[in-house]
C-alpha cells in the first residue's frame, strides 16, 4: 500500500517537473498540474461507486493501467514535446488519466479490505499509508531519484513498481479472482513489466533530449548536422540559437550585435558593391547589409547547409532575418571558408566575419595569419573587414590575439565594442589593408532602419573604456593555435 501511495505522488511530481522544464515558469506549471491531478483524483473516487463486480480484478487492472500510463509518462511527454503542437493538451491529459486511476485505487482498496477490518481501523490505516507514502515520494524525488535516475528512468522504475504491486495483488487477492482471469492478469502484468524494463534500458536514447531541456527553454528545433548540433529554443521573451551548446544569438537583443558588427564596416568601405559574409548562416548580418542601397551582391560562405536551411525555412528565423538569404542579391555557398578563401575571387569591397568563437581547432584555423593572408588576396586594397572577436572583458587575451594576428597578416586594425545584454560586453574589430578606418560620423538615412545605432552611439563604439586596453599576446598561427588555448583558459568556468 505504501508503494501504491508513493507511485501516485511520484507521477504527479514528474509531470510538474517536466512541465516546468519544458515550458518554463515553474509556479504556473506546478500549480496547474496539482490542480488537474487533485480534481482527477476526485473524478476517480466518484467513478468508483459504479464499480460493483469483481473488485479484486478491477483493482489489479487499475494498477496495471497506472503502471503503463504513469511509467511511460515521462518518455511520452518528452517525445510529444518534440513532435506535438499542443503539448499542454497531452500533458494535462496524461495527468488527468493518472489522477483518475489513482483516485480509483483507494476506494477500491478500502472496499476490498473492509471484509477484513472494521471501518475506523480501515480508514486510519489506508490514510496513514497514503500520507506516509506522499512524504516518502516527496523526499525521494529531489534527493535521490532525479539526480541519480533522471526523470525518464524514475518514471519507468515506478511504473515497474506499480506493475509489481499489481502482480503481487494477483497472489494476495487470489480468493477474489476467477481461475481463468488469473492467468490473463498475470500475463498482462508480465507484459507491462517487460515493456517498462525495455524502456529503462533504452532510456539513454530518449535522455539526449534532456540536453536541450536543461537549457530551460522550449526546444523549437533541434538538428545534428555533420558539423554541429543546431538547437533553436524559445521562451517568453524571444528565441535563441545554439550551436554545439553555445548561444549564438537571442532574438531579444541580437540587433545590437548585428548592427554593431555590420554598419561601421559597410559605411567605411568606399564603394561597398560586393560584400562577403563569412559564417553568419543565420542570415542576420545579411539582413543588416541589405539595408545599404549601394550593395549589389552579397556572398555568404557558411560551412553548414543545415544552418542556412534553417535560416530560410524555419518561420521564426526567416521572420527575424527578413528572408535575407532569399534576396536575389545574395548567394549562399556551403563550404569550409578555410578552403574557399584559397580560391580565386573577384575582389570584395567589404567583408563581415561572423564565425563562432574560437573554441575548437577546426574553428581556430579561421583566425590564423594564414587565413587572413588568404583573405587579403580576395579583397580590394581599401576594402573594410569587420569581425566579431569574443568578449574583450572576459577574454582579453583572445580578443587582442585576434587583432594582433590580423596586424601580423598585414591589416590595419581598429578595435571597438558594445554591450549586448545576452552576451555582456562584446568585442569587434575593423580591419583593412589600406583604408584609414576613420570612424564614420553620419548614419544619414540608414538611421531610420536601425533599432540601436545613432550617430553618437556609432562614434562611441570606438571609445575603449579603461578596462579594455591592448595587451601583448602571441600571434595565432596554424602551427601553434594559441588562440584556442587562450580562449579555453579564459572562458573555462565562465559559461
Amino acid at each position, binding site marked *: 500500500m505504501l508503494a501504491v501511495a508513493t507511485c501516485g505522488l511520484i507521477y504527479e511530481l514528474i509531470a510538474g517537473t517536466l512541465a516546468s522544464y519544458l515550458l518554463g515558469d515553474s509556479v504556473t506549471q506546478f500549480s496547474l498540474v496539482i490542480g488537474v491531478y487533485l480534481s482527477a483524483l476526485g473524478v476517480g473516487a466518484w467513478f468508483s461507486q459504479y464499480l460493483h463486480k469483481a473488485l479484486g480484478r478491477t483493482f489489479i487492472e487499475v494498477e496495471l493501467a497506472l503502471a503503463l500510463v504513469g511509467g511511460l509518462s515521462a518518455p511520452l511527454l518528452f517525445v510529444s514535446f518534440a513532435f506535438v503542437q499542443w503539448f499542454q493538451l497531452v500533458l494535462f491529459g496524461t495527468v488527468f488519466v493518472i489522477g483518475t486511476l489513482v483516485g480509483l485505487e483507494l476506494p477500491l482498496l478500502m472496499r476490498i479490505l473492509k471484509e477484513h477490518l472494521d471501518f475506523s481501523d480501515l480508514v486510519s490505516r489506508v490514510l496513514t499509508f497514503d500520507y506516509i507514502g506522499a512524504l516518502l515520494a516527496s523526499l525521494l524525488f529531489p534527493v535521490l531519484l532525479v539526480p541519480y535516475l533522471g526523470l525518464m528512468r524514475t518514471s519507468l522504475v515506478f511504473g515497474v513498481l506499480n506493475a509489481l504491486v499489481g502482480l503481487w495483488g494477483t497472489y494476495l487477492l487470489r480468493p477474489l479472482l476467477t481461475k481463468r482471469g488469473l492467468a490473463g492478469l498475470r500475463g498482462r502484468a508480465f507484459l507491462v513489466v517487460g515493456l517498462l524494463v525495455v524502456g529503462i534500458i533504452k532510456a539513454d536514447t530518449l535522455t539526449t533530449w534532456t540536453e536541450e531541456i536543461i537549457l530551460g527553454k522550449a526546444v523549437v528545433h533541434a538538428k545534428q548536422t*555533420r558539423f554541429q548540433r543546431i538547437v533553436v529554443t524559445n521562451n517568453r521573451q524571444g528565441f535563441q540559437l545554439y550551436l554545439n551548446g553555445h548561444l549564438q544569438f537571442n532574438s531579444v537583443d541580437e540587433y545590437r550585435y548585428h548592427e554593431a558588427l555590420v554598419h561601421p564596416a559597410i559605411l567605411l568601405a568606399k564603394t561597398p558593391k560586393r560584400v562577403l559574409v563569412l559564417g553568419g548562416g543565420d542570415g542576420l548580418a545579411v539582413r543588416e547589409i541589405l539595408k545599404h542601397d549601394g550593395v549589389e551582391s552579397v556572398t555568404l560562405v557558411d*560551412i553548414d547547409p543545415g544552418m542556412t536551411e534553417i535560416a530560410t525555412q524555419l518561420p521564426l528565423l526567416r521572420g527575424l532575418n527578413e528572408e535575407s538569404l532569399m534576396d536575389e542579391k545574395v548567394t549562399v555557398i556551403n563550404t569550409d571558408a578555410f578552403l574557399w578563401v584559397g580560391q580565386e575571387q573577384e575582389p570584395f569591397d567589404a567583408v563581415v566575419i561572423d564565425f563562432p568563437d574560437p573554441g575548437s581547432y577546426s574553428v581556430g584555423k579561421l583566425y590564423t595569419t594564414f587565413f587572413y593572408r588568404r583573405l587579403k588576396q580576395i579583397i580590394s586594397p581599401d576594402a573594410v573587414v569587420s569581425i566579431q572577436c569574443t568578449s574583450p572583458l572576459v577574454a582579453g587575451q583572445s580578443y587582442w590575439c585576434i587583432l594582433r594576428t590580423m596586424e601580423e597578416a598585414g591589416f590595419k586594425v581598429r578595435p571597438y565594442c558594445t554591450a549586448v545584454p545576452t552576451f555582456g560586453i562584446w568585442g569587434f574589430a575593423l580591419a583593412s589593408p589600406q583604408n584609414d578606418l576613420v570612424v564614420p560620423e553620419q548614419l544619414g538615412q540608414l538611421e531610420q532602419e536601425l533599432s540601436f545605432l545613432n550617430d553618437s552611439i556609432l562614434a562611441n563604439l570606438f571609445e575603449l573604456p579603461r578596462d579594455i586596453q591592448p595587451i601583448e599576446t602571441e600571434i595565432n598561427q596554424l602551427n601553434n593555435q594559441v588562440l584556442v588555448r587562450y580562449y579555453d583558459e579564459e572562458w573555462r568556468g565562465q559559461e
Partner: protein
Amino acid sequence: MAKSENLSRRQLLTALLGGQFAHSVGCGRSTLPPAGELSHTRFDLGHLLRDGVEKSVSPDAYKDVGVTIVGGGIAGLAAAWRFKRAGFDDFVLAELEENPGGTARGGRRNGFKFPWGAHYIPVPMPENQALIQLLSEMQVIEGLSEDGRPVVSEQFLCREPEERVFNDGQWYEGLYPSHGASEEDLLQLAAFRAEMDRWAEMRDASGRRMFAIPMELGSDDESVRKLDQMSMEQWLNERGWNSPRLRWLVDYSCRDDYGLPPDRVSAWAGVFYFAARIARAGQESQEVITWPEGNGRVVDYLKDVADDQIQTGLGVFEVKAGTNTELAQVAALDTKTRRPVGYRSEQVVFAAPQMMAKYLIHGFSESGRDSTGFRYGSWLVANVHVKERPENAGFPMAWDNVIRDSRSLGYVTATHQSGVDHGPTVLTWYYPFADVDAVITRKQMLNLKWADWVDVVLTDLRRAHPDIDALVTRVDVMCWGHAMVQPLPGFVWSPEREQASRPLGPIHFAGTDLSGVALLEEAFFHGVRAAEEILAVRGILDQPLVDIRNG
C-alpha cells in the same frame, strides 16, 4: 605453400598486434571493405636482379652518357637536382619502379593525396644548406630570420593539433601519455629532456653540434661514438630510467624512426632522434614540415626538375667500373619490354641500397668492400579511406594519432594539413616489423593476402574507433620489403659504414643507408654530396652546397 607457413588469424593478430588481441579473435572476421589492393615493392624483380640476370643477357649496345644514376629514391633524385643546378644535364637516372621516390613516395586517389612512407621533415637547422636551398626553391622556406634560421611558410608547418595519444580508452593531446602519470614519471621525463638538451647544447672541439642533421655535419667525437656501443635500452638502464611512460615514449620513437625496439637500436641513434631536433636547450623540438601527400611533395618536385633524364621501369643488374681507358658500363633490364639496355659513362652515382652493391657492382667484394653490416627492416603502410570521421572519445582528431598499447604507429590524417576537418578522409596507418621476426618470417609475411592485412589494420583501428568498419570504403596496403636501414648497436660508427660513402673508382655512392639512419635529409645530403664529388672531378663545380668532411 607448406602448411606450417600458414598462420591462423589468431597467430597473425597476436604476432603483429600483441596478446591483448587474442580476445578480439572470437568475434570473427568482420566484413571486408568494398575495395582495395595489396602492393609490394618489386621484390620479385629485386630478387631477380640480385640473383643476377642470366649471364647470356647483355645489352647489344651501350649509349654514351656523362653520368648514370642508379636508383631514383630521394638520393638519386637529389643527385639529379644538383647536376641540373650546376647546368649539367648529360646524365640518365635509372629507376626500377614505375614511380620514382622510394619510401618517400606519396599517392593519390579519389581526390585525396596521402603518403606511402615518410611524411614529414623537421625544419632544417642553418647548417643544412642544401636542404634549405631545396625548400626555398619549393617556396616552402620564405627566407631567413635575423639569426639565420629558416622561416617556413605557415601552411607547410604541421597544423595544430599535431599529435594525440589513445590511452585508457580516451584520446589525449600530445604524444607523451601525461594523463595519469605519477610524479616519478614526470621527474624522469624532465630528466630525460634535460639530458637531450645537454646533448643539443654541447659542441665538440671543432665547434660542431654533437648531433646534427645530416649526421655527417655532427660530431665524430669519442663521446658520441661511445653511445653506438650500447643499445638505447642499456642507455636508459644505466640512468635508472624505468618509468613505463618514458620507456613507452622511447620505444615509440625508436619504432617510429628506425622500425626497431630500443633493445636493438644503437643508443647513438636513440639520442640522435631527440637531440638532433633541438636547436637550443629549453626549446621545443624543431617544428615539422608536412604535406597531405607526405614527402611525396619533395619527390614530385625533384622529379619535375629532371623529368627528361629519369627512366623508370629500368632495373640495373650490372655496374662495371672501367679501368683508366675504359668507361663505366651500366646494364639494365627494361621491365616492360624485358630487353636489356646499356649505358656507358664517365661516372656512376650508385644510389641504390648498399645491400645491392655486391650483387650489382662488378668486383665489389674483391675491392675489399663489405656491406653485410647493412641490415634493413620491413614496413607495412595502409591507406584507409573513410567516408566520415570516426567517432572518438576525448581530444579531437590530430595529424598524428597514436594508440599507446599497440605495436602499430597509429595513423596520420591525410586531409589534416589542407585544413579539411569534416567528411571523408584517408588515414595512413603505419606498422614497422620491429619485433616480430621471431614470430613471423619474411616468407610468411609475403604469403599474406590483402584480406589478412586489412584484418590486422582494422583490428588495430577498432580499439580506438569502434565504428571504423562501417566507415571504411577502401583499404590499400603496401608492403615494404627492405624499407629502412637499421641502426643496430655498433653499426653507425663501424668502419664498414664510414667507408661505404667513399667512391670506388668512377662509382660514387649515395643513399640514406650510408648514414645508418633512414631520413629524407640523409638521403638528400648523400645525393647532393655524390653529385658534387662528380662535378668537382668534371671541373664544373661552382659553389658546393655540402661540406665534405672526409673528402
